[in-house]
């Protein structure tokens, strides 16, 4: 068979992860727009059916459940969590054709659209709704085809797609490292969403590098992860000083 990645949960030196500071995030959406632009994400005239839209990085609006004027809202950008649960992520476990596999050298959970048969099992398995299905063939206005990036392959109908942590940038960074005679493993790069965030709310890097900003922030007392109780071990951490946001990060009784 092909795609027989090392399925053991490697204790490698690199685990790319993200920390999103919800105190700083203003929900502007620049990250999501940059993601769409960078990754050739298709759009349609009507995007108001949120259950059919393609979104690699979705902004959720959290509400504190109180009435005016104690009502407060917060925006939570949610990319793919690139779950690091032992052995398999919820999604990589269920894909029948190995279209989604976690790279144990970087922790990135890949989704190869050209391998994907569109059974949507991974969508069902993912508790974060990180995956979008191409319900329609992608169709860009003719003139807008010019802005498609050759760095990312456009997807067609009938397959699932999701956030890749902009792994094409990782590949480019590795090649640059090779050119410069540096070690291509463990290179640092920046996803599009991180680049775009005007508040600097998103930090990206190697979670296993104790000197990295992302590793430090992941240990911040304000840090939490969505649905910790599921033990999916997501590699996207959030920071918030609001207790009501912490409470909404996971299911809790009462």
């Amino acid at each position: 068979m092909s795609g027989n990645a090392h399925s053991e949960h490697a204790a490698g030196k690199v685990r790319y992860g993200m920390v999103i500071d919800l105190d700083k995030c203003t929900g502007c959406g620049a990250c999501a727009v940059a993601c769409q632009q960078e990754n050739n994400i298709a759009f349609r005239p009507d995007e108001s059916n949120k259950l059919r839209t393609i979104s690699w990085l979705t902004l959720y609006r959290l509400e504190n459940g109180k009435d005016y004027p104690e009502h407060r809202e917060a925006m939570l950008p949610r990319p793919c969590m690139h779950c690091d649960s032992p052995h398999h992520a919820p999604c990589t476990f269920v894909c029948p054709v190995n279209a989604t596999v976690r790279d144990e050298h970087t922790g990135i959970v890949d989704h190869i659209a050209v391998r994907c048969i569109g059974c949507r099992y991974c969508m069902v398995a993912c508790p974060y709704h990180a995956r979008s299905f191409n319900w329609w063939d992608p169709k860009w206005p003719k003139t807008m085809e010019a802005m498609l990036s050759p760095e990312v392959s456009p997807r067609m109908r009938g397959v699932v797609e999701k956030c890749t942590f902009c792994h094409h940038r990782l590949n480019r960074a590795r090649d640059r490292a090779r050119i410069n005679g540096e070690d291509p493993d463990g290179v640092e790069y920046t996803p599009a969403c991180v680049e775009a965030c005007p508040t600097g709310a998103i930090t990206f890097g190697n979670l296993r590098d104790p000197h990295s900003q992302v590793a430090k922030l992941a240990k911040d007392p304000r840090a939490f992860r969505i649905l910790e109780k599921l033990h999916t071990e997501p590699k996207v951490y959030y920071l918030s000083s609001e207790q009501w946001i912490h409470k909404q990060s996971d299911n809790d009784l009462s």
Partner: protein
Amino acid sequence: MDKALIPEGVKRCPLPVFGLWMLVLFAVIAWGIYAGLTVLLKGLNVTGLNNYFGFGLYICVDLGIIALGAGAFFSGFLYYGLSRFFPQLKELHKIINLAVIVGFCCYTGALLVLLLEIGQPLRGWFGYWHANVHSMLTEVIFCISCYAIVLVIEFVPIILENRKLDAIKPVHIFGHNLHEIMAIFAMTGTFLSFFHQGSLGGVPGVMFGRPFAYREGFFVWPWTFFLFTLSAMACGPAFTAIICRIIEKVSRKQLVDRSVYELIGKIEGGLLLTYLILKGLDTLYWALDTAPGFGLKLSDFYQEPYGMWLLVAELGICGVIPVILLLTPQARKSNGLLFLAFFLDCTGIVINRFAMTVEALAIPVMPFDHWAVYIPTVYEWAPCIAMLAYGALIVSLSYRYLPVFPREPELNP
């Protein structure tokens, strides 16, 4: 005009009437095919599926059909495997042919719908080529294929018993030999079916991102594995019995001895009781430990329209009541109650499959997420109904042209 094909000793309705029925079925199937082709050409956007409901009517019907169709294997197992030790099971030979046919219809129909379920049907074969051994769907793909093959093999002897075909000597010899090794296939199919239903039950074991469906450790293997197997066993023969009864009603004949129904009733009653007990414990453990461990209470999993009524319906109305009816001799004696029980039994399994697929997806996992409601479109209903029509077609043709019920002549002198 087709008398030559009709088995000896039995009577069938006039060809025009049958033809009309065929037309109806063909119309439905055509409708379904049209809808299916529309899905294949336009994409799944014509369905009611969405990013929250990755699974929908297709999966639900598939799982339900496969469970109901599992009666073939289980019946085969009972007849070919256990009747040596329990002579009373010999009676099942009176209905075993129908079971095979029903199973064949279910599995092959499921295969067809399966193609509509995936976004890239043309790449469906990747499941065989790039199989992920950890994925339950891989197991499903392989198992369904095997079961379909096994059922075809089991079906062939029945077909070969057609009067015309049987006339052909090599065919006759071949069919006869097939009959001999049917037990082997039956047993094989049974074990495969056990594993298949079980692997369907294993699906929750990998869904640790879905608390409603997730089962862990012991409760995946062997518990949920056996639960799915058991539930299929507990309803499969019942489904076959219902089909048989329907044929009896339509043909206004008695096709099997009443004792067969009663035997099935007892067996199903016991299996359903066992299933209910185990299912109850499974649900208990899930509700007492697994779900709270995820920060969820039982009530968190139920919201209209996916309310508590589903649980009550599945385990109460379609679980306890059939058990009581089936395990009460007096109730078994009443056709109404017996088949009501069978019907509830089968309904329960479909509800269960629905709960484990559509309902499980309706439940928001993230606290700030919302409940979603899934409404299938005609492009989902049509193929499924067409698949049922396809099954009806096969059953109708089989009944008309094949000696499905050995006791039919004697019971309808």
